[in-house]
Each structure stands twice: as C-alpha cells, then as structure tokens.
C-alpha cells in the first residue's frame, strides 16, 4: 500500500506529454476532439471580446449621444450570446463525450489485456493496485483528453484574443499592461507549486488520520484487552493537531495567493487609470477603449490562473499515463507461439475443431524452474512420468513450494529449462485454452462467483443441462446443500459464495470441476477445519473425483495421501522424496518423520473442527 501511494506523487516525464501513447485511443474520436478544440477556442474568444461591446456602447451611446444603432446593438449582442450558447452546448457535449468514450476504451483495453496476463502478474500486484490501473488511471486520462485539454485551449485562446484586442486598440497602454504578465505568471506558478506540495502534505495527514480511525475500529478488541486507550487517544490527538497545523499552513499560502492576485489586478488597474486617464484627457484615446482596458485589468488574473492550473493538471496526469501504458505493455509470461495460435486459435477465437483429445499422461522432462520474482531454483533437472489415471499426492509443510508442480501442469508458469510433456508432446505445442478446457482445478480457497448455484456450476461447461448439474452434485454427495437452499439451483450465492460454509464451497467447486469431465484434475485441499458431515462428503467427493483421472493433489488429509499412487514430499522448495506410502514409510526419511509427527495433528484437526 505504502509504496503504491507514494507512486502518486512521483514526477514522470514522458515524451510529448504522453501524447504518442494516447494517440491510438484518441484517433477514434479525432473529429470530436477537433470540434471540441475549435468550438472551445471560439467560445472563449467570444468571451474575450465582450468588452468591445462595452466600448461601442460607451463611445456611441455616451460619447456621441445617439441611440440610432441601439436596436442593432442589442440584436447583435443577443445574437452573439445565443451563438455562443449554442457553441457552448455543443462544446460541453463533445468534451463529455471525449472524456467518457476515451475512458471506456481505456478501461476495456486494460481489462481485456488483464485477461491475457499470466498469473504471476496477479501474484505480484494487489487487487487494489490492479483495480486502480483500470479505473482511476483511465479516469484521469479521460479527463486529460477532455477537460484538461479544454482548459488549455480555453484560456490560451482567451489570452491570445485579449492580447490582440489590446494591442490593436492601443498598443502603448497594451504593452504597459502586458509587462505585468510575466511577473504575474511567475508568482502564480510559484504559489501553485508551493500549494501543491502543501496540499499533498495535508492529504498525507488525512490518510494517516483515516488509518488511525480504521485501526481504532478494527483493533478495538486488542486495544481494550491491552488497556492502551489513553495512549491511542493521545496519539490520535497529536495527529489531528498536526492536521490542524498543516491545514492552517496551506490556507496561509492560499490566502497569500489570493491577495497577490488581487494586488496584481489592482496594479494593472492603476496603470490603466493613470496612463489611460492621461491619454483620455489628452484625447489620444476614447473612453470606451479605456473601459476595455479596465475590464481586462480587473479580470486579468483568471486566465493566468487558468492556464497555470491547466498545465500543472497535465503534468500531474503524466504518472497515470505512464502507469497505464506500463500495464498495457506488460507481456504475459505464458503465451502461445504464433504457429500454435494459428492452429488452435486464441482466447477470443478458439479453433476447437483442431483440438485433439487429451488423455492425461504427463511427463516432467529435465525441468528446471525458478519463479519470475525469485532467484532460487525450485526445481532442478526434475524428471517424473505420470501415466494416465495416476493420482499424485504432494505433501510438505506450508510454504514448502507444493504448488510449483501444479502451476507447471496448469501452465500458469513455464519451466525455465526442460519440458512438460502432455500425452508425449511439449505442452507449449498446443494452446493454453486447449489445456485448460481439459483441466479441472479445485482451489484451496474455492472461488465462487456472484450468481446462482447453476451459473457457478456451469462455469466450466456453459451448455450443461440441469440433469448434468444435478448428477455432478450427486456424484460428490453435495445434494444436501441443494436441499438446504430454498431456490434450489437458482439460489444466489453472493460475492465469493457468501452464504455457504468453506466446506460447502469446496464441495461445489469439486462438482464444478467434475461437470466438465476433465482428463486432468488438480486439487488443492483445504486446511481449514470443516464440520464432520461436510468433511465426510468431501472425502467421498475426492475419491470419486480422482477415479480414472490423472490427478495432482496438494494433500493434507491422511486418507488422500495414503491412497495416492505416488507421493511427492516437498521440503524447502525441493522434492526430497517420492514413492508410495509403503515405500516411503520403509525408507524412514522425511516422509516418515512428517507422517509420524503430523498424523495425530492432522486427524485431530479434521475431527474436531
């Protein structure tokens, strides 16, 4: 979390402000964007020339004291205002469209790309982090191509028009006022930079306080048992006091900024009054022109603040562009070769007609492996032949690396060296989809999706009939779950299957895996305690499930282990022993030690729950 947060404050420099990265996304909406910019510039330009009406009114109606052109003047004025309103409407439409459409495309691309990334990406990045890439980075970029760009165009055009009008109407007075501009820009920039920093500090403090509160709530029991309420309370008061200090400091600068801005306007106005007054009395300049200068001087600070704000906004989004492009450019570590895709199709367009049946013989041939984020070799020149229909049990302590073999069989990772052969052919010669469609996986923490029981079971076989579903539930003796549910197969089982116990979820996930009748079954047994009824059902389900299938089980239950055809003993990431239960007990090695030490615990755990 912490490092991810700090990321936000990083200053990133991308070539051309990241525009080349964004081009593919903007390209589609080129026309909208051009309209947006053109109309935006126009509308803002009209805003800038309103004082010209003033001048006309003063010069003609006041100076010349005639009302001849008044109706025309009013019609002209209202007409321009109406045109401006229409343009404005269109402009806001374009801008919102630009934001939302680009945003959607960015999210879609990110999401689709995520589906193609290998599991190692998901292991290395937290849910929150991935979520933020899809949602908030896209959102910020969407804002950039719409409102941020618009800000720049708007104020840029405004300033340009104002400069032109001033120079044309009276270049001497114009130059005097313009001389103030650089000073104003520098001051505003300095202040904004300072404020940005201070605001960041306030936000940091704000998250500290939020964390304090969160801790106060989630840790309330611990706090009470340790009797440290006073200490925590004092700590919290210190944090809120610091928040107070930082906020006041920020306001101090914000108020100074406002003051400076007002001062700059006042200076500009006094220059206009003084020099302009002289020019007017000397009849070198009309009063109407002076009125233009007065309005510009009074309102000169808005555009400056606007343009400085727009630029700093664009700079702030650079980090989002960079992170987004990093996600889009992350290559999956596991992918199909082009010739494999050619023959077997890809995720989105599988060519099932070319898929061979999978029998389920698996061979590890001289496999060496280390995880992408680690140096240590987990497997070294590992060889193992698993004939079709064999049950392999993998045992060892938690964190010993039991999932490695399973990860390789599923092609969640590829061997660093050597090959995994499936039915005698390198796994990489056929597509991931082909393999996965022949593979059943029951996770230790079974993941069920939001939806009905039917939806969840059909996950592996979308066209399964209710009979098939009921049959597979019956096979794993999970009928009793259905009996409990008032809507039967139509029962909604919330996010992650909220209303079921872990054991029941596991049963459903075994049924789900069996429904697709996979040739290979991977089973990661749950360690958590399960009540006796469900436990019995699970044991039965497992023995049914592995019958006549090649299976790999990360096993914790004695019955599963003892009955396996091959037991692999894993310790500190290496396979230290292999053989049947009898052989290994005779060998009196690691397995024997593990077995004699743990069996009591294991069974007792299972029994008591």
């Amino acid at each position: 979390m912490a490092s991810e947060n700090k990321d936000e404050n990083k200053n990133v420099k991308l070539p051309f402000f990241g525009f080349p990265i964004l081009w593919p996304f903007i390209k589609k909406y080129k026309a909208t964007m051009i309209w947006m910019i053109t109309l935006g510039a126009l509308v803002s330009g009209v805003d800038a020339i309103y004082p010209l009406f003033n001048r006309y009114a003063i010069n003609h109606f006041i100076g010349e004291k005639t009302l001849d052109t008044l109706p025309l003047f009013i019609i002209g004025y209202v007409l321009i205002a109406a045109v401006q309103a229409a343009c404005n409407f269109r402009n806001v439409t374009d801008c919102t469209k630009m934001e939302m459409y680009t945003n959607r495309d960015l999210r879609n691309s990110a999401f689709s790309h995520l589906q193609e990334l290998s599991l190692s990406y998901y292991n290395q990045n937290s849910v929150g982090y991935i979520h933020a890439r899809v949602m908030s980075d896209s959102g910020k970029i969407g804002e950039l191509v719409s409102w941020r760009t618009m800000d720049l165009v708007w104020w840029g055009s405004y300033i340009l028009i104002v400069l032109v009008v001033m120079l044309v109407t009276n270049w001497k007075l114009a130059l005097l006022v313009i001389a103030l501009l650089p000073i104003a820009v520098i001051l505003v920039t300095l202040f904004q930079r300072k404020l940005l920093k201070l605001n960041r500090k306030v936000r940091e403090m704000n998250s500290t306080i939020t964390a304090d509160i969160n801790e106060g709530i989630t840790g309330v029991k611990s706090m009470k048992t340790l009797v440290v309420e006073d200490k925590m309370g004092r700590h919290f008061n210190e944090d809120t006091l610091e928040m107070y200090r930082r906020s006041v400091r920020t306001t101090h600068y914000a108020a100074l900024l406002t003051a400076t801005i007002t001062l700059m306007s006042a200076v500009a106005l006094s220059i206009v009054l003084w020099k302009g007054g002289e020019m007017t009395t000397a009849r070198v300049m009309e009063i109407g022109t002076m009125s233009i200068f007065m309005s510009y001087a009074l309102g000169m600070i808005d555009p400056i603040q606007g343009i400085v704000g727009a630029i700093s906004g664009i700079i702030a989004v650079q980090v989002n562009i960079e992170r987004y492009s990093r996600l889009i450019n992350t290559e999956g570590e596991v992918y199909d070769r082009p010739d494999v895709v050619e023959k077997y199709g890809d995720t989105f367009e599988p060519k099932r007609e070319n898929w061979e049946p999978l029998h389920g013989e698996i061979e590890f041939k001289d496999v060496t492996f280390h995880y992408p984020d680690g140096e240590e070799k987990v497997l070294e020149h590992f060889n193992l032949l698993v004939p079709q229909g064999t049950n392999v049990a993998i045992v060892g302590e938690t964190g010993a690396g039991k999932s490695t073999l399973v990860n390789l069989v599923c092609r969640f990772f590829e061997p660093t060296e050597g090959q995994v052969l499936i039915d005698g052919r390198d796994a990489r010669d056929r597509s991931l989809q082909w393999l996965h469609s022949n593979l059943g996986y029951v996770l230790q923490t079974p993941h069920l999706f939001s939806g009905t029981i039917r939806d969840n079971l059909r996950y592996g076989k979308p066209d399964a009939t209710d009979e098939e579903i009921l049959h597979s539930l019956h096979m794993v003796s999970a009928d009793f779950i259905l009996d409990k549910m008032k809507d039967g197969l139509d029962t909604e089982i919330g996010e992650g299957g909220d209303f079921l116990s872990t054991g029941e979820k596991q049963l459903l996930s075994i049924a789900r895996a069996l429904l697709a009748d996979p040739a290979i079954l991977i089973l990661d047994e749950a360690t958590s305690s399960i009540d006796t009824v469900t436990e019995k059902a699970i044991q039965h389900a497992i023995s049914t499930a592995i019958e006549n299938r090649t299976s790999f089980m990360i096993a914790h239950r004695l019955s599963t282990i003892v009955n396996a055809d091959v037991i692999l003993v894993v310790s500190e990431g290496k396979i230290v022993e292999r053989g049947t239960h009898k052989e290994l007990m005779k060998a009196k090695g690691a397995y024997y030690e593990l077995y004699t030490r743990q069996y009591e615990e294991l069974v007792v755990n299972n029994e008591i729950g």
Partner: protein
Amino acid sequence: MARTLEQLQARYNSSSKKGPQGGGRGPHGPRPQGKPKNAKQTIARLAGYAHGFEWRFILVLICMLTTTVSSLIGGYMLAPIIDRLTVAVTGREPEMSVLERAADSVVRSLMNSAGADTTAVMPYVITAALLLGAIYLVSLAMTYLQARLMLGFSQGMIERIRNDLFTKLQHLPVRYFDGHPTGEVMSRFTNDVDNIDVMINNSLTSIISGVVTLLGTLTFMLTTSWILTMVTVVCIPLFAFGGGALARISRKYYSAQQAALGAVNGYIEENVTGQKVIKVFNHEDTCVEEFCMLNDDMRDKQFNANFYGGIMGPVMGNMSQITYGITVGVGGVLMLSGLLTPGGLTVFAGYSRQFSMPINQLAQQMATIFSALAGAERVFDVMDTEPEAKDAENADPMPHMEGNVVLDNVTFGYVPDKTILKHISLYAKPGQKIAFVGSTGAGKTTVTNLLNRFYDIEEGSITIDGVDIRNIKRDVLRENIAMVLQDTHLFTGTIRENIRYGRLDATDEEVIQAAKTASAHSFIMRLADGYDTIIEGDGANLSQGQRQLLNIARAAISKAPILVLDEATSSVDTRTERHIEHGMDRLMKNRTTFVIAHRLSTVRNANAIMVLEHGEIIERGNHDELLALKGRYYELYTGVKELD
C-alpha cells in the same frame, strides 16, 4: 455465455457497498446524503464546539463585512473617475447619484487637504485611484486575515469533533461493533466529518459573504438607479430556475452513475481475485464481453451525469451575459434620458454580473448544508451511544491479583432469546491451565469474552480472587488478563512498540526477552530494520504465523496473572510450533491460563479440560480421566486410531 446487463448489475452492484472506504468523494464534491431530522438542535450542538472560539468568529465576521463592503466601495470608485473623464471629454456635467456624490466629495476633500486644484482632471483621477488602491489594500489584508481566522476556527472545531469521536469510539462497548460494520463507522469519521468541515469552512463563509454581498450590491444598485435594479432583479428567477433544474437532472443521473460504477468496481474486483478459476475454465472471453457491457452502460450514465453537471457553468455564464446585455441596453436608454451617469452605468453593469453569483452560491450551499447537518446528526448519534458501563463507585482497584477465577452458573447470549452459554460453572486456581474444546460455535470464545467484560453476563457470576468482576475497575481487570487471540490486531508502529503494548513501561531488554520466549526473535532479526521495522496496516507485511508470534511476545511481556490463549498458534506451522512449545510453557508458568485450541496435543497437559457442546459443559476432567470416560472427548481424540 454472457449474462445480461440487468443480471450483472443486480449481482455486482451490491458488492460496491463493501468496497474500500476512504475519505474519497465523488468528482463533484460531497453529494447530499439524507436530510437532517432536527436541524435546529444539531446546529446548536455544533455551535457548542465553537466554544472558546467566539471572539475569533466575531473577528471573522468583521473581516468578512469589511472585505465585502470595501470591495463594493472599491468597485464604486470607478464611477466618479469615469464621469470626471467623461466631463473632460464631453464637457457636460452629469447628474450624479447620492452615493456617487459622496464618493466625489471624499475625493475632492482629499485633494483639498493635499492642496491640489480640485477642478483638474488628472490629479482627480490619480487621487481617486490612490483611494481605490487604499481600499483594495484594506480588503486584501482583511481577506487574508479572514481566511486565516476562519480556518483556525473551523479546523479547531473539527479537531475537537474528531478527538471527541475517537475518544468515544474507544469507550464504546464491543457490542456496538457487532451491529455496526467497520465501513459504516469509518464513514462517520471520514465522510460525515468531512462534510461538516466543508460546511463550516466553505458554506458558512460563502453564506455570510453571499448575504452581505447580496445586500450590499442591492443597496449600491438601488442608489445608483432603481429602475435598472428592477430590470436586473427580474432576471434572477431565470438563474435560480435554470440552475435548480439542471442540478436536479444531474443529481438523478449521478445516482444512476454511482450504481453503474459500483457494478463495474465489483466486477473488476471479482475478476482479479478469481483470475485463476477464470483461466482454468477459459472464461476470459465471456468476462471481456460482460465487462464491455457493464462498461458501456457506465459510460452512458457517466455521460449524462457529467454533461448536466458540466453544462451548468456555461449556461450560467451565458445567462449572465444576457442579463448584462439587457442591463446595458436599458441603462443606455436611461443614461441618454439623463437618469444615469456613464460612470453609474459602468459600475452598474459590473454589479449586475456580480449579483447573480451569491444567489447561485446560496442555492448550491443549501444542499451541502443539509447533507452536512445530516452527517452531524450521525456523528452525534455515535457520541450519544451508551459507553461501556462506568466502574462501580466502590470498584475494587485490586492492587495485587492472584488469579483465582470462578465462574458460577453463568448464562449468556449476545442477543436476547439466543443463549450461547448455559449454566457454566468452573474454577481455576492460580497457575492452573484450563482448556476448552468443542466444535465451532460451541461457545469457547464467548467464555473469554466474558472474562474481560467485553460483554456483561446476565445470570450467574464471575469472580476473581473472590471479587465479582463487575466490581473490579475495568482497566485493572483487563491489565491483569493477557490475551492472545487468533486475530489480535497489530498497530501501526515499530515491532518494538507493538510488543511493548503488552506492558508500556517494559525496557528494550525485556522486549527482546519476550520475543525470544515467543520464538519471534529470529524472524524479527531477519527483517531489514529488526525491532525497528515498521508494521503497516495491521501487519500486512508479516505472515499470519509471524503475527501470532508477535502477539504471544506481547503477552509474554505483560505480568498479568491470567492468560487467555484463543487459537493462539493456529497459523504457526508445525515446525515453529514445536520450537515455541518450550516458550509457551514458560509463558503459562505461574499464570492461570485458559486455552482454546483445536490441536488436541496443545491441551493434553491441561489441569482440566472442558468439553463444550451447544453452550454446555458436557464433560470435564484431565486428559486421562476424559479418555477413561470414553465419551465425546474420547471420540474426538481417538478418531485417529481407526484411520491408521
């Protein structure tokens, strides 16, 4: 086979409520949430928090008044200047309004005292400009002062509210948290307090300054030209109506957008956490299809919400241009008929632009204020919750506790009519080890919850050294019971500090000793900063097993005579558990210990084992006795043999 949009939204939107709660606000600032039930009372109570800041607030008001009035006057100073210049150019003396004459005479008297010629044009303009500058400077200083003072005022109040709330939070009974999920309590602190903050800091300021500006502008406008004022005032409903309508539409779409956003968020979250299953079942394409559907829907709803939000500013801008046009048009006619001076028209035009601003502001602030008041009510609601019962008047400070614990006929349920424990009686002599076994939900943890008075019992009594625990000072009671729970919280801070939470006056030496007892020393030393390693977010950077070891160390450092171990080593791997056994023995020595464990080997050497089933003790005795009894314990324990 993708599901339909409606199905997806129904399923995933609900999950958004469980999403992370931060101080996050939508892109449009806080949105109105509910309406205050009793606004008057809430405001009075909020005002109570301003106690001691009264003078500061009065100063703020003065500053605000000065700022607003001086900027109004400043704007007005342009009138005599322009008229003077017009006279110089056209040679015609216009009919000035009362105010303008007053301003004119001030400038002239200033010139007089400086000994200048009051009829000369340039000196007049310069003097007036200087006066204008002086007024601006005053307004400037006041603006700064006001912002400073106001922030001190509002932040001071917010700090008090936050601290009060936090203090309250700590003294709420554990029961409160059973009925209020973390997210909900969090939102009191974050959203609700933030809304109050915004209200005090921004809304209050803008309302006061809005009203002052409105009245001031109106006065100035009326004295300049009442006819023109009428024209401007007539245009106002236009604004109010247009703005209000837009805000309503936008709000409607906004809630639709929030729902769509919730669905998308929920979908991504589930997709990321369930990625393994998705890959194995080849569901990537369906997921993309479903996501696109949700995404498209969100885009459309976002478009609507943002469009109506975004169009507001420009529409208002355009309207004020139109008002301006009308004002100038009518003003022109008036001026030619001699009812208005050119200078008057100039400042009036400026005022007419300003005039709509405070009205808009006021309309917008109302929503914020309502939502802040509703938030304040929720905050006060927490503050009014009954805290843990106060210690009895004659509560025993128990300077020295032996650890003689007796439960006599204890019956208890978390909610009425649902008894969890039924007639539990047991005693533990100092230094004895009592174990509880039984299936989940049998009431093992409940026993420990009663010991430290997280909940008070309804029937029966619990005594320590013969004193009913309800008559012992709560702090003393809890200090004397060291608890190691399955999910004990680690606090933000260093490892050293976390262990020291067990006994705040422990030396560094004792901290290390405790860590060694808990077998935590070796892994701590392997961390980059050893004992000074910072623990973040409840120890997210440590494994579950490591966290449990730290909790054991925390118990080891305390000198409490009573120790409760509730699944204390459930996540420690078997090898480490063997290491720790020795340390645990030392930990339990001379302490009355209550153990809950599902590894039977840990409870085997207890002095007494209580087998709980459905809230009742169905068997009790030591290991050998219970085995000989051939009852439930025997069944639990010997299930092993049959499998062998």
